[in-house]
């Protein structure tokens, strides 16, 4: 079930899913997910729509709790934590939503400041410097005082990323970052994910059904099918996999 | 420039009303809307009006005692108030909240999911298909509902008078007859008809104004409810003034 191969002797996993099961009513979304994620890698979780990819991601920040199974973040078991116990985790694990989810009533500057003020209790010059730095990294400094509804979708996505990386998390979770973007913007976002990962030395978990992007920037690809991990490995290994379903997924690339 | 929205609305209203008289007459849609507006709302409206009726009795008795120290005439006054005012207005406002808001939401959602465009492609006039049946159903429905529920409210008044004012049903009927008559019931129905006529016009208008996204659907639905409510109150004032002057 779990065909992970380590291409180099990596350290112990930073995130582990152990036989995680989650259902909503009669709909079993995750059947038995076991997956290790290693620090510093860019891993793509690919699957059809409705295969539970986003649900898996949300478990890592405590927006969803598993029905059974364990989830470990740096040896801490997340499955039974309470809401307020998740706050320190959310400082280290940042989720970037599929819809930008920016706060409509706040400016771009205030949006980016939100997490910094509440999770990290920063203020004054320190706060301002951090925000300006992050805005510059994503080349959106000129949008500082604009409101989200005046921005294009691509610009909103960048502000959403800025808001999350401002907290200097160790892990970045991307929920379908390139869905709905034109090919040019897709390339830009992929480049962003890759460079952020290298620059900030974060682990990036990207959920997507864009195989092309996966083959472009992923260190590892994992295919989720019917609530279970089908295969996992480097892009080269996936390409050579003989499983019919896998072949169907990579047909478009 | 300021009058622009009014012009848009009146041209919309004119188109919808014209479409009522244009064949094909979609009677099955009409009956569907009627069922929604009258049959499904009947329990709630009856219940609410019963509550309102009881409160009217209590308040009237309080004030009567203040003015003339005697509450024997309370049923009469209360009945008149219910028939001429409360019946129509409370029914109308409840229908706005239940059916009116639903109309706005329905049309707003159909607009942003391009179903309206799809209708036009098939050659169906959207106003005639969506709005006209609602207007006819609502006018007739609210009128009937008003009258029916007012009668029920009067019965409740009788019961309430018996419990709180120790008035036997016979005394109640006597007091009732002194002040009210069938004309007042028709007033209730007439007001209901006018209110029922305007509710779909206003609510659907705002539905068609929706320009996309969850936020806008919510905003337009809210606006539909608020505008309908205020227009009903203003219309009620005009009608009351008119009726009291004519009779």
């Amino acid at each position: 079930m779990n065909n992970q191969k380590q291409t180099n002797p990596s350290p112990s996993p930073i995130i582990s899913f152990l036989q995680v099961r989650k259902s909503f009513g009669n709909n079993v979304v995750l059947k038995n997910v076991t997956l290790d994620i290693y620090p510093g890698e860019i891993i793509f979780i690919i699957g059809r729509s409705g295969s539970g990819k986003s649900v898996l991601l949300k478990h890592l920040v405590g927006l969803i709790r598993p029905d059974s199974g364990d989830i470990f973040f740096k040896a801490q078991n997340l499955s039974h934590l309470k809401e307020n116990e998740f706050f320190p985790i959310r400082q280290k694990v940042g989720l970037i939503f599929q819809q930008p989810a920016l706060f409509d009533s706040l400016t771009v500057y205030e949006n980016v400041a939100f997490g910094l003020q509440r999770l990290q209790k920063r203020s004054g010059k320190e706060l301002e410097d951090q925000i300006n730095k992050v805005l510059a990294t994503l080349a959106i400094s000129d949008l500082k005082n604009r409101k989200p509804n005046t921005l294009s979708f691509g610009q909103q996505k960048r502000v959403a990323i800025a808001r999350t990386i401002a907290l200097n998390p160790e892990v970045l979770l991307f929920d379908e970052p390139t869905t709905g973007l034109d090919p040019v913007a897709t390339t830009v976002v992929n480049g962003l994910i890759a460079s952020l990962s290298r620059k900030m030395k974060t682990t990036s978990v990207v959920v997507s059904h864009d195989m092309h992007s996966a083959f472009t920037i992923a260190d590892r690809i994992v295919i989720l099918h019917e609530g279970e991990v089908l295969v996992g490995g480097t892009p080269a290994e996936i390409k050579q996999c003989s499983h019919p379903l896998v072949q169907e997924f990579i047909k478009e690339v | 420039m300021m009058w622009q929205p009014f012009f848009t609305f009146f041209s919309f209203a004119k188109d919808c009303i014209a479409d009522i008289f244009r064949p094909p007459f979609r009677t099955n849609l009409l009956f569907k809307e009627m069922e929604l507006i009258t049959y499904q709302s009947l329990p709630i409206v009856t219940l609410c009006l019963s509550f309102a009726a009881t409160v009217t009795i209590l308040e009237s008795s309080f004030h009567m005692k203040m003015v003339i120290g005697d509450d024997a005439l309370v049923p009469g006054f209360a009945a008149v108030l219910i028939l001429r005012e409360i019946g129509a207005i409370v029914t109308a406002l409840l229908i706005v909240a239940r059916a009116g808001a639903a109309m706005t939401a329905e049309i707003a959602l159909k607009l942003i999911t391009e179903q309206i465009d799809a209708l036009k492609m098939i050659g169906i006039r959207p106003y005639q298909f969506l709005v006209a049946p609602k207007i006819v159903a609502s006018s007739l429905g609210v009128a009937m509902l008003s009258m029916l529920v007012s009668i029920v409210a009067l019965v409740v008044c009788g019961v309430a008078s018996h419990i709180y004012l120790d008035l036997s049903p016979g005394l109640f009927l006597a007091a009732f007859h002194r002040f009210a008559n069938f004309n007042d019931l028709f007033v209730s129905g007439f007001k209901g008809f006018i209110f029922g006529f305007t509710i779909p016009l206003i609510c659907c208008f705002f539905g068609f104004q929706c320009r996309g996204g969850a936020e806008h659907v919510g905003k337009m639905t809210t606006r539909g409810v608020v505008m309908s409510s205020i227009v009903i109150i203003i219309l009620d004032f005009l009608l009351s003034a008119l009726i009291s002057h004519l009779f």
Partner: protein
Amino acid sequence: MSTRFYNDDNPSKILLMLANLGSAVIFLLKILAHLGNLKLHQEDIFHQIWKITLHSLGIIALSGFFVGSIMAIQFSLQLKEFAALSLLGGLATSGTIRELGPLLIAFMLSGRVGAYTTSELGTMKVTDQIDAIRCLGADPIKEIIFPRFIGIICASFFLLIFGVFTSIFGGMTAAALLLQLSPQEYLREIPRFLNLYSILLSLFKVFVFSFCLAWISTYIGYHTEGGALGVGKNVVKTAALSLSVIVFADWVTSLVSESIQLLFS
């Protein structure tokens, strides 16, 4: 939260309703838990009160004016029977303060504020903003819900006073134009009809109505699901439910006040 109820196949309607009620009570308790540190939220709450009051002034003014006129017309017909037209001002004002004022404010607010709040919160929920708040280290109930809840209740009191005054103005105007009753005559008897008890009843009713409205609109808005369709559905739900609940609460408070009055007389 709602996923728990799907484990039963076809739970009965009554069970679902009770479950929702229970969930709503838990929600309310979570909100009220923040009452302890009101000072912290001062700025947010004042901002909400200001925003809601301003937002609703127009509609309250208009509806108050016209309902006042309607009451004047209706009561005048009955007072004419007793040739006691001079009492019109007092009677109409007393009726407004005790009954129609709170009811009217609540009705209008259920649209202007209730539906609006559900729309706002619902949109935030379906665009993941609520989840984003949690991910960035804040409690949505503390940040978003609590200020709005308190704001609605406080703003209602200001709007009640405003509504009563516009109502009196409306009645006065109608009396002057249609009934040849001068403003002075209209206003003269008002003190005679007012007592402390009526005013207390009025304030109590406004509190109960706005409490129910705040509770319903925030609960339904916060638990919206399903995109634009869900938001639309829930706005309709709030509009319909809040009106019915207000009418019911009106009845209950009237009964309660009646019993209390009987006790004291």
